[in-house]
């Protein structure tokens, strides 16, 4: 469904993405792993149209290249991003945030159905419809951000570090919800620091380092991969852990 290739991105002279390619199949859950600054966030932003990659890049959704289209048109094509920091409308109520999620033209007819789905997934949002979004806890805000993205009837839902800053129990809850979303028709592309939990819900994974894809495999294979274990899963590689550098 999603075929991304030749994505390079410069911030000034800094090369954030270097000729990245990846793909996500229909209904698949894919995770991108890598250290801080590896370019994972930039990659999601490029796929969502929030930043424009260098010429030659392709973000093909069902064979149609979306690169170069205006940023607000990507969600209309079925690509929804839950950005790092959540990006909810803090001054607005929960209900208004969800309503805005259904703003894309193709999503409007399905607003009621999607809202029911979101409230079933995150019952706490239902209890807090009239609450101003920024007064909620971090976990609730993350649920709202995901709920808002689901309101747009996405075919591909991308999440940038959804568990960042959340308590372990909230993270568990969050990944349970993501797993349920992954079992629907929606494909997931997740960037995460929490390697164990994200590999637990993923079908496949990519490893990123310094703006490049350096490895890929099934979730099961990555879980048992020595390099992944050393870098992320607390394997016996004290230098890698203490410096935080991907081996």
């Amino acid at each position, binding site marked *: 469904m999603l075929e991304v290739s030749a994505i390079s991105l410069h911030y000034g002279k800094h090369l954030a993405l270097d000729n990245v390619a990846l793909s996500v199949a229909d209904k698949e859950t894919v995770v991108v792993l890598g250290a801080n600054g590896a370019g994972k966030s930039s990659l999601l932003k490029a796929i*969502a*149209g*929030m930043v424009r990659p260098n010429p030659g890049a392709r973000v093909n959704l069902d064979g149609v290249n979306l690169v170069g289209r*205006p*940023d*607000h*048109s*990507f*969600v*209309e094509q079925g690509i*929804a*991003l839950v*950005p790092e920091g959540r*990006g*909810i*409308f*803090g*001054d*607005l109520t929960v209900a*208004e945030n969800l*309503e*805005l*999620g259904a*703003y*894309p*033209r193709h999503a409007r007819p399905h607003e009621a159905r999607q809202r029911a789905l979101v409230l079933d997934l995150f019952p706490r949002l239902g209890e807090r419809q009239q609450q101003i979004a*920024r007064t909620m806890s971090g976990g609730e805000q993350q649920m709202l951000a995901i709920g*808002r*993205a689901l309101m*747009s009837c996405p075919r591909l839902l991308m999440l940038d570090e959804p568990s960042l800053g959340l308590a372990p129990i909230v993270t568990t809850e969050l990944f349970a919800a993501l797993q349920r979303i992954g079992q629907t028709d929606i494909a997931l592309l997740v960037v995460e620091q929490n390697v164990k939990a994200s590999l637990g819900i993923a079908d496949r994974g990519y490893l990123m380092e310094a703006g490049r894809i350096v490895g890929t495999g099934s979730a099961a294979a990555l879980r048992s991969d020595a390099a992944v274990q050393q870098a992320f899963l607390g394997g016996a590689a004290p230098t890698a852990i203490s410096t935080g550098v991907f081996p």
Partner: protein
Amino acid sequence: MLSSAILTGLVLGGTYALVAMGLTLQYGVARIMNLAYGDIVIAASFAAFVLFSALGINPLLGMLLILPLGFALNWLIYAILLQPLARRSRDRGRLEGDSILATFGLLFVIQGVALVIFGSGFQSYNFLAVPVNILGTIVAANRLLALVLAVAFAIGLFVLLTRTRFGTVIRAVAANPASAPLVGVNVDSVARFAFALGGALAAAGGVVISMYLTFSATMGVVFTMKALIVVIMGGVGNLMGALAAGLILGLVETLVSTYIDPGLTLAATYLIFLAVLVVRPQGLFGKATS
């Protein structure tokens, strides 16, 4: 004397609030600090004056023409002059600096045109200048109408912003412009619309002012300053804050000029303004974190 002063203060305050609501839309949503704002107000006053004195069209009917014109003119100003600035400066600080300079130039263009056509003298016209008795206080009907119009526009705008999908979109862009594209909102076109709507409110304020005050081509800056004070007192982008702050400002000015000295009205205005800036820099009704 007190009830008369309060009524006069409410009329003046209602006008300030009406004028300020347009500026808070332009600044809160389109992120344009528009120094030419008061000159749009005065241009609308002159338009109402011309329609009334030359063509005999009463200002209420005149609004039907002047408001859409104000909307269109501001839409064009944004599309031609300000959108290029907004596109090339993605961070807010730079856009504010650029827009202040650009609209400072625009101020003199509009003012210059008004000076050429109307000269520098004060103008006014007689519309509904009949006394009305409100609970024992005599007040001119045109002032009463000004207050009613200000309140009606405030309610209308409030309903638009809080009860419609498009209003929610406008508030979303004001709250978090970076996230708006994530839900498919075209920030450029929403900002353009909000700026134009703010311009239409400025025009409404101008027509209301012309009904009961004298005005001149060089008076625009006074209304820009007053509107700016009201916007900052009420909290940037806060509609109800602008309404309340406008009424407070009008009341204080009138009470000071009635009971202390008319020469101290401006001093009182800025004293309140400074007090608000020192004690509550986010505005009386603004949020502490924004």
